[in-house]
């Protein structure tokens, strides 16, 4: 169980201006799940790229069973039995699930023709082993993000890897899928697979990881071997200082109802959803992936047409034909995938921040660029957005800075109801806390927030009330303070066991 599969010895890698890995040594044991932790920019991605053959280290050795080796390219990594599941998907959306799983190694029959029956049979076997119910003929692009992530992992399972590297594998997964993945990983571990597990979600790190290595500024700051470290120590080691309160929740909710949904239904699967959002409140939407959280956001925001029910904003009935209508009425959506749906990579911070409120900058038909600069610069200083963003386009920024910019867009506008869909996904602890502070700032200013999050701890800590979603409808709306993590997991995961809040039920 404890033989070293792969050893990294004093690996260094420099990029122009940056020493990304500084003499990093890690031993990856067969049959062990090794957590690799650290803030964004600590050098995790660099290390993964080195291990998967995407790039070469400047110095240091990689030892396989004690023998120094080179991994010149990704194909070589695959030949050594090293599979990597990157954070950015490498699946082809226009191909079927089966094709994606065996892409690059499609089984051939006679005459070199692809044996489709074998492709789909083998793919079905892999998915069955993973306990995943996805048809192998389905076009991968039509699957949900979580299902695509599972297909991505299935590729690694299919090649029967001796070592598997997972870079934020659960970022897009719901609770039940995370549990399924963990079961799968435990199975692989017992069969002697070495697993390198990168995650920002410390709660699951605690659940699954056997040993931990923590990187900061390219160096190993804690190498635990087989020892476990307590989560607060992990956080402090990652950040390099005592971070204090992880969830700085402020309660700013009032009794005034801002937005009310009555019996909303859409073709996308929202069924008879009613909720009331108060001024200054954070209403959390909890539930498993596919329970309809994002669909509710789309229904409220005018993306999906309503087939039933209505929306009341400030006491007036409203009907949104599209997103523009909703934005004009004072709604805003910070989408789950900031890279695909949120940011303008051709703009600097200011262009991104003002994009939703250009009309307010127009003076006699001309954009007041000086006013734009002043306003965005103040906002950037306030939110501690890297000053680099002033004259560089936003693709050069860290995920945390990018997310702050997307949210700042709505701080700059006069939006009064913000829907935040997974606002802290894939950003590091420091940036997460900054986003929480930003949520406080929004509610303090009298704005209301609908928070969608798969991170249960975050949802419980940052919401005033939580609506538990199941099958496209709201099972219960309860006071967040009266709910424990286990209640929430149980309530959203099982259909048979409805949520029972302990002290009292909050008013809907």
């Amino acid at each position, binding site marked *: 169980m404890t033989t070293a599969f792969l050893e990294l010895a004093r690996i260094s890698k420099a*990029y122009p201006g940056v020493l*990304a890995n500084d003499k990093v040594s890690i031993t990856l044991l067969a049959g062990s799940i090794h957590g690799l932790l650290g803030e964004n920019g600590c050098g995790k991605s660099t290390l993964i790229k080195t291990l998967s053959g995407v790039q070469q280290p400047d110095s240091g050795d990689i030892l396989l069973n004690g023998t120094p080796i080179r991994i010149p390219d990704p194909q070589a990594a695959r030949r050594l039995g090293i599979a990597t599941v990157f954070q950015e998907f490498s699946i082809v959306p226009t191909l079927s699930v089966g094709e994606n799983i065996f892409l690059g190694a499609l089984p051939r029959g006679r005459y070199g023709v692809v044996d489709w029956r074998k492709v789909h049979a083998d793919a079905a076997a892999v998915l069955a082993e993973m306990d995943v119910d996805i048809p192998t003929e389905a076009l991968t692009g039509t699957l949900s993000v979580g299902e695509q992530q599972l297909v991505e992992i299935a590729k690694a399972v299919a090649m029967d890897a001796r070592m598997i590297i997972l870079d934020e594998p659960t970022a897009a997964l719901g609770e039940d899928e995370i549990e399924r993945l963990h079961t799968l990983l435990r199975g692989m571990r017992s069969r002697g697979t070495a697993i390198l597990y990168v995650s920002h979600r410390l709660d699951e790190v605690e659940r699954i990881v056997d040993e931990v290595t923590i990187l900061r500024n390219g160096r190993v700051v804690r190498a635990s071997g087989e020892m476990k470290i307590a989560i607060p120590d992990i956080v402090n080691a990652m950040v390099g200082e005592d971070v204090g309160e992880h969830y700085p929740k402020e309660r700013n909710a009032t009794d005034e109802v801002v937005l009310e949904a009555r019996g909303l239904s859409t073709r996308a699967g929202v069924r008879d959803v009613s909720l009331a959002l108060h001024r200054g409140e954070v209403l959390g939407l909890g539930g498993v992936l596919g329970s309809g959280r994002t669909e509710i956001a789309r229904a409220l925001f005018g993306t999906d047409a309503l087939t039933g029910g209505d929306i009341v904003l400030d006491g007036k009935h409203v009907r949104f034909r599209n997103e523009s209508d909703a934005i004009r009425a004072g709604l805003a959506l910070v989408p789950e995938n900031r890279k695909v749906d949120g940011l*303008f990579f051709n703009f600097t911070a*200011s262009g991104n921040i003002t994009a939703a409120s250009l009309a307010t900058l127009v003076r006699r038909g001309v954009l007041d*660029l000086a006013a734009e600069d002043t306003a965005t610069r103040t906002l950037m200083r306030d939110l501690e957005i890297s000053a680099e963003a002033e004259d560089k386009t936003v693709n050069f920024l860290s995920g945390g800075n990018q997310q702050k910019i997307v949210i700042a867009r709505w701080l700059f506008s006069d939006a009064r109801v913000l829907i935040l869909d997974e606002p802290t996904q894939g950003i590091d602890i420091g940036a997460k806390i900054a986003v929480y502070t930003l949520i406080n700032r929004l509610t303090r200013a009298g704005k209301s927030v609908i928070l969608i999050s798969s991170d249960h701890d975050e949802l419980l800590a940052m919401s005033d009330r939580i609506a538990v979603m199941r099958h496209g409808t709201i099972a219960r709306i309860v006071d967040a303070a009266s709910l424990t993590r286990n209640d929430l997991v149980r309530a959203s995961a099982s259909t048979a066991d409805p949520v029972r809040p302990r002290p009292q039920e909050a008013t809907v």
Partner: protein
Amino acid sequence: MKRMFDAQLIGPFAAMIIAAAVVALTTDSFLNPGNLSNLSLQVSIVALIAIGATVVIFAAGIDLSAGSMVALLTMILAQMLKFMGIPLVLAVPLILLTGCLLGLFIGLITAYGRIPSFIATLAALIAFRGLALTFNNGSPVFSLDPALETIFYGSLLGIPLPFFYLVFFYGLAAFGMNYTKLGREIYAVGGNPAAAVLTGIDVKRVQAITFAIAGFMTAVGAILMAARLNSGSPNYGQTLELQAIAAAVVGGASLAGGRGNILATLMGAMTIVIVQNGLNLNAAPSSVQNIVLGTIILCAVGLDMWRVEISAFTRRIVGRRPPPGKAG
């Protein structure tokens, strides 16, 4: 934020100066006032149409219809002046309006009909040429109106009029792109249409407008084309759309949309025309001219795409060591 004059102009400006320097050194007549004024006449039509082509490209579209639309509009202008007796002062604005409406029509088809602009304008490229042939039994119409010629050959203070058109329209376009809401929205739509929808920008409307602008600028080009030869012909404007796109690309506009500076397109057009002029002065055959033009386009895009590698290469030559610090 993007301003009228920014770093994006340096490359195209340098390319233009280098091209001019090479041509000036290899020929005797390049710097003659006569040749220079001829140059501004030569560049004017392509450069004006390229404004529209570039605006469409900024919004991540492409317009292939300009060349055929030029032919169609010169035939309609000929019809108006020669056979319908419409006076020039009325015919010119009518042509501008027609161009604008044709462009808008294409824009509506691609934006609201969800037909990719490459396909929609390819269809228009073919159909407009055919439509041009339906006028005057497909024959060119000559000697339209002596006053028409002044639009192209006239001059003010000894400077050819097309020079003023260039200054006016490029000034207007640069102002519009950098200092108006519409300009910013065009960049936003080209940069990320999904994000533009979620910020409340009417993406389809913006896309349609870019094609209306392109149609208008094509009409400006068509009027100059008819004025230059005092005629209308269904054969005018062949490959003009490609030259306009080439000018935009040599000027650094990204075909993926959202990036580029409109003034760089003028420099791109100038670079291309200067090189053509140099080859003409050196009596190079047209086959060589086309090969050179193709190579310029490749190099311009290549220099842009390989920017990172080139700067890394120069750094290695210079041998600067990276300081330690935070990494990605």
